[in-house]
Structure formats: C-alpha cells, structure tokens
C-alpha cells in the first residue's frame, strides 16, 4: 500500500481490516466468556448452589447477544476472500480454504447446534446436559479460533505447501499446515488475550454492581472470578506466549521486528524503546527513551545479541506503514503491562479482604473493560501490518492479491455500507446488553415461558 487513495488494494485492505476488527470484538468475548459459563455450570452441578446457575444464566444471555452479532458479522469475512481477494483465493485457496471449510464444518456446526440449547434449554435439558451444552459451545468457539489462527499462521509463516505447475499453491502436508509452530504460539497468545477480555468484562460488571450496591452475591462472584482469571491470563499473554511470539517474529520476520521497534540501524546491545516516535524519512526514532540491551535480551535472550535494523534490508520489503505498526505494538505492550499491574493489585486487595471496599479500584475495574478490546485489536494490527508488503510472507505480495475486476467505486460503496450497518448493529448491541445489565442477574428464572409470564 502506498498513500495513494486511488489504489484499489488500499480500499480492499481497509474494508477487510474494518470488517475483521469489528467482527473480532464479538468472538473474543465469546471465547473468553465460554469457559466462565462452563466453570459456573460445573460449580452449580457440584455444589448445587443456585448462585452459580444465576451467574451462568445471566452471562449466557450476554453471550447469546455477542454470539449473534459474531455470527452475522462473521459471514462477510469468508465471502470477502472471494469478493475482494480473488487473486489471493486463486493463488492459495487450495491451502487456506482447507481451514476455512474446516472451521465451518467442525466448529460452527457444533457451536450453532448447542448455543440455542445453552441459552434456552436449561429447563428442557436438565443440569447435566445443560453443562454439556456449555462445554460444547466453548469447545466449538475455541476450535473455530484455532482454524482461523492456522489460516493466519500460514500467511505469516507458510509451511506444508508447494508451488504447483500452474503457479498456485498446493498442500504437501495437511499435518504440517495444521500444526504450524507459528499457529501454536499465536493461538496460545490470542486465546489468552481473549480470556483477558472476558475477565475484564466479568470483573467490570461485578465492580458496577458492587459500586451500586446491587446483587452483592453475584457482584462478589464476578469480581472474584474476573480478577483471578484476569491476573493469570494477563500474565500468560505476556509471558510466555507474547514473549515467544516476539521471538518467533524475530526468527522468521526480522525486518518486521525491526519495524515494530522502530529500529533503523542494526547493532549489538539493542535497546528497547519505551517512548519515541518513528521518523521514517529521517530513519530514526525521535525523542527515544530506551532500556539498553532490552531488545537484544527479549528477542534473543542475551543483552549483547546483535539485532538487525531496517537498513539491513532492502526498502521494498519493509512493512509499508512502519509508524502505525510501531504504535500498535507499543500500545499493546503498554496496555498489557497495565493489565498485569491492575489485576495484581486487585488480587492483593482481595487477599487482604478489601477489594469490595476499595471504591477507587472498583471504579478503575468498571471502566477498564474496553481496553482489552483495544489491546486485542492492536495485537492483530501488529500481526497484519507487520506482515506487509506480503500477503503470504516471502511468497505472495498483497498488491497481487486483491480482486482486479472490482472497481474502487464498488469497494468504497460497500465499505460505506458496512460502516453504516455495523454502526447501527453496535448501537443495538450496546442497548440490548445495557438492558440486560440493568435487569440484573438475580431476577431471572430459567428462560422458557416468556409469553405466559411476561417479565418486562
């Protein structure tokens, strides 16, 4: 991509980036929340304590709203491989199509068969089967995540393929493709980040109810589950998964690592920038504050290791928007660090029995929930901007992947359509979730006969 706004690749990228970033706001909560539901249903089975059932019932409704928006905003993603990225599909469809199809066949059938049972089926299914429905949905959502990560991992680090006689890519080993080492690390990192989102949302609602003085039992449950899981997951996102992810980028995409760090000149004892603004024209980082040797250590395990700079590589394989890549990465890291500190502090207060009395911390927890969404999005922006100018790393350029027959007029029209539609969808979603939150968790019986007993 250059800055030329008449470049069709730019508009297709913008549309895909927008629809995908928007879509992923929903599955990340679904994947994070799913295991909370499983846990609560399991506790309810074991202890018979109704508060766990209440929690599961309440969050299942929020889950359901999320799931619905996730489904409707997800279908365009698959279609856009054909509509906007025909060149890419033609070139690599035989490989990446495998996992796109497997996602539908293995994961979505499972999820969509049981999600209705999870939300509406408590009475009909009984506690044991209802627990199993929750588990099936959780497994389905994580399986779907894995197939998508495998698809992306192939774009980051192609394995198990060969170039066929007609120039397109064929699969030589399904195992190698599915077990791409990049995919394992990326999946672990991404799923932990999804759990962070889920934990922060659960904790935020607990904090909200605690501050309002409503539903004390439920509030305590959410705060405890959210902050405990939140701490574990926030740590796991950074270490070992994030650390390994960065090392892998250093191994397979060194030019990307240099760009993420805004490092133009290579050398030993490379510092890691805490603050600084990349100045690509002057090829330097303005106003840097660095930890000496930090990058060498993080990427290669020794403070003295040599780290390449961008100038060690030809400029035509530099990521095409170094500034945005740099900020995405650095903001993600900053947020991730703050998440660990916040959740650690919350757990210390809980351990000393003062969590629910600390008004300030409850306020912070209540308002913190949007930031994991931001961090997740920034993480994906780092991955995808860092991959440029390649669509398939070192194999296939992004500029060769878009649909040549689709005019800018069409892409811009549909981009506007998606923006408008998704804006309305977002308002609707927030309104309905807000309504659930104001109804609260304790008033509800299992959902089943709403018309006979109007509850509104």
């Amino acid at each position, binding site marked *: 991509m250059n800055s030329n706004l008449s470049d069709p690749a730019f508009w297709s990228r913008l549309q895909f980036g927008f629809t995908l970033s928007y879509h992923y706001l929903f599955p990340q909560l679904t994947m994070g929340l799913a295991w909370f539901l499983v846990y609560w249903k399991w506790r309810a089975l074991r202890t018979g304590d109704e508060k766990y059932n209440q929690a599961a019932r309440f969050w299942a409704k929020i889950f359901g709203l999320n799931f619905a928006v996730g*489904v409707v905003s997800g279908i365009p993603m698959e279609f856009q491989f054909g509509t906007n990225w025909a060149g890419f599909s033609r070139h690599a469809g035989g490989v990446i199509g495998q996992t796109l199809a497997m996602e539908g066949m293995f994961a*979505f*059938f499972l999820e969509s068969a049981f999600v209705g049972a999870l939300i509406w089926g408590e009475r009909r299914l009984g506690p044991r089967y209802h627990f199993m429905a929750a588990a099936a949905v959780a497994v389905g959502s994580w399986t779907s995540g894995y197939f998508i990560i495998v698809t992306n991992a192939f774009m980051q680090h192609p394995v198990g393929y060969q170039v066929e006689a007609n120039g397109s890519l064929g699969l030589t080993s399904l195992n190698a493709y599915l077990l791409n080492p990049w995919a394992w690390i990326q999946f672990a990192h991404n799923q932990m980040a999804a759990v962070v989102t889920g934990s922060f949302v659960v904790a935020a609602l607990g904090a909200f109810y605690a501050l309002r003085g409503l539903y004390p039992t439920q509030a305590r449950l959410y705060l405890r589950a959210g902050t405990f899981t939140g701490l574990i997951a926030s740590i796991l996102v950074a270490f070992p998964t994030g650390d390994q992810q960065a090392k892998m980028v250093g191994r397979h995409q060194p030019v990307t690592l240099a760009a993420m760090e805004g490092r133009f000149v290579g050398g030993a004892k490379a510092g890691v920038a805490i603050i600084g603004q990349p100045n690509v024209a002057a090829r330097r980082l303005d106003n840097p504050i660095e930890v000496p040797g930090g990058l060498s250590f993080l990427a290669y395990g020794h403070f003295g290791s040599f780290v390449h700079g961008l100038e060690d590589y030809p400029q035509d394989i530099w990521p095409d928007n170094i500034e945005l890549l740099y900020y995405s990465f650095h903001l993600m890291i900053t947020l991730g660090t703050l998440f660990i500190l916040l959740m650690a502090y919350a757990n210390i207060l809980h351990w000393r029995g003062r969590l629910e009395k600390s008004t300030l911390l409850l306020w912070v927890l209540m308002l913190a929930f949007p930031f994991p969404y931001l961090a997740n999005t920034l993480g994906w922006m780092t991955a995808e901007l860092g991959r440029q100018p390649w669509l398939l790393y070192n194999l296939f350029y992004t500029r060769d992947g878009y649909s040549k027959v689709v005019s800018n007029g069409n892409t811009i029209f549909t981009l506007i359509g998606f923006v408008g539609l998704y804006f309305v969808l977002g308002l609707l979603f927030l309104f309905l979730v807000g309504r659930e939150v104001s109804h609260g968790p304790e008033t509800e019986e299992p959902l089943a006969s709403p018309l006979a007993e109007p509850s509104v």
Partner: protein
Amino acid sequence: MITAWYCIVSFMLIVYVATDGRNFGAGMLHWVVARKPEERRQVVAAIGPLWSWHEVWLVGFGGTLVAIFPRLMAAAFAGYYLALMLILWCLILRGVSLEVGGHINNPLWQQFWDFVFVVSSCLLAILFGAAAGNLGRGVPLDAQGNFSMAFFTDFKTRGYVGLLDWYTVSVAIFAAIMLAAHGATYLALRTEGPVHERSATYAKYLWGAVAPLFLLISAESWVVRPDLFRSGLYDPLCWLGLFVAIVSAITLISGLSTRRETRAFIGSNGILVGVLATGAAAMFPVMLYSTLAPENSLTANAAAASQSALRYAAVWWPVAFVLASTYFVFISRRYSGKVSLKRDTQGFY
C-alpha cells in the same frame, strides 16, 4: 475425484437452499399467515433457534468452495461483487431481526423487526433466485476467466449480460414463489391454530402456482441454454433428479390433500432437492458458463485446486460430515413437533 467434489459442493449448497429456503419462505409469508402479535411470535419461534445452524451450511459451502474450486470462488465472488454484498447485508439484517425481535415485549419494537425480517427474507429469496438464474444463463467470462457484471445491461441473455435480464428476473420470481410455498409447508408442519390453517391454505395455492411456472421456466431455459437440455438428456443423474422431483411432488400432493404435514414437508424438500440436483447435473462439467464464448467457460477441472488439496479434504470432510449429522440428530429431536409458545418462543429477556 473432481466429480465427487462437484457433487459434495452442490450437495452443501442444495442443503443450504432447502433448509434456509424455508426460513426465507416463512419470512415472506410472515405478514400474511400471522396477523396478531402472538401469531407472529409463533412463526419466529418455528425458525428462530435454527437459522444460524442453517447458515452454517452456507459458510461450509463457501469454505469448501475456496478449498476445492478456488478459481471458481475467485471469479464468481469477485464478479458478483455487489449482488453478493447485498446478500450479505440481507443475511445480517435477517439474522439480527430474528435474534433481537423477541427481546423486548413492546409492539413497536416487534413491528419494526418483523418488517426487517419480511423485507430481508423477500430480498434474499429474490437475490438467491437471481443468482441461480445467473448460474444457468452464464456470465460474461473473458478468456482470462474473469468477469465483472452490472446489475442490468440490455436485459438480453447473450454477450455482456447484467445480473438481471428477462430470464434471471423470471427465475428470481419463480424461486421466490417456490421458497414461499416451501416455507408455508414448513409452517403448516410446525404451527398450530390460525397460523397453521393459513399456512396450509397458502401452501396449496403456492404449490399450485409453482407447477405451471416450472414448465414456463423450463421452456425459457430451453431458449436460453439449449445445450443444457441436450446434455441432460443423456445424463442419468438428471433423470434421477427429475424422478426425485416427481416422486416428491406426488408425496407433497398426497401430504397436502390428506393433511399429513410431515409427508408434505418431505415432499417439499424433495422437490427442491430434485430440481436443483437436476440443474447441477445438467451443468456439469461446466461450473460457470460464459455468455461471450462457450470456450471461456470455467469447468470443474479448470476451477479445481491441486490434487493434494482434494485428497486431504477428502480425508477430513467425511469425518466432519458425520459429526455434523450427529448434531443434526440432537437438533431434530430437540426441535421436533409443533412449536408451543409456552415452551419454544424466542422469548423476551
């Protein structure tokens, strides 16, 4: 191998049309078969919990198309760009209207989402119908295997055609009527009371209209693509599809006239499957016919991915299909019988 995959891909699309088609049909008839608010909830409850399961067939079809016939996917999806985007938007609106329409027990809220539901269902039936017409008629594929199509050009069926011409428009109308009939048959099976009565009546009238229209569309297709009929004549699969459709029609008629709704619904599904399968068999091996020059047409062989991709997919696809069928058993047990608003409505929460 490629023939088998052509069958599988067609099968997935046909299952999608048969399952989600009844939802489009129910959506089109929503206002006429259900007049009071509780009656409308009944219609929504009859399709509500399953629409996303049905849409997975479309997702599975799309994914399999990328994996097995990437060049078809690339050419067709980019070529049909605006039409597909319209379909996507309608699918979004349809799904949302079903999900959130029942959330709030407020007449204005429900009227609004019922409206969205009806309009998006009508558009979807027409757009999918037009897409089917386009597959039959062909698209202006150039020698490189690309095309890009306007919504309409001169309404003729040769050369640089548009999405809509006299043929595809008539197929779209036919498809909408047929899916409405299918939806009415389904609603008659799953509902009670006045909705049931009206649906059963509409099913009779609509299927009655389908029969002559089917002959008309067949005659039109003869004019537009005589080669399809010439090749279909010697294809046993076409005859099999036609046989299925005829047997299903008899089943449907006997089901409708004796008020055996399960039988009628089986017949209704069978007709859709039979007609679509006949079409798919007649088209093979061409997947995308060129209106510019027949030699530009994209065949299954030319559209397919490498042998290895087909082989690997042949390993996992049957496993996934068996799993999906198990879930289907669960679903059909759980959602069988008449919907009862006491038990099954989407509910307000």
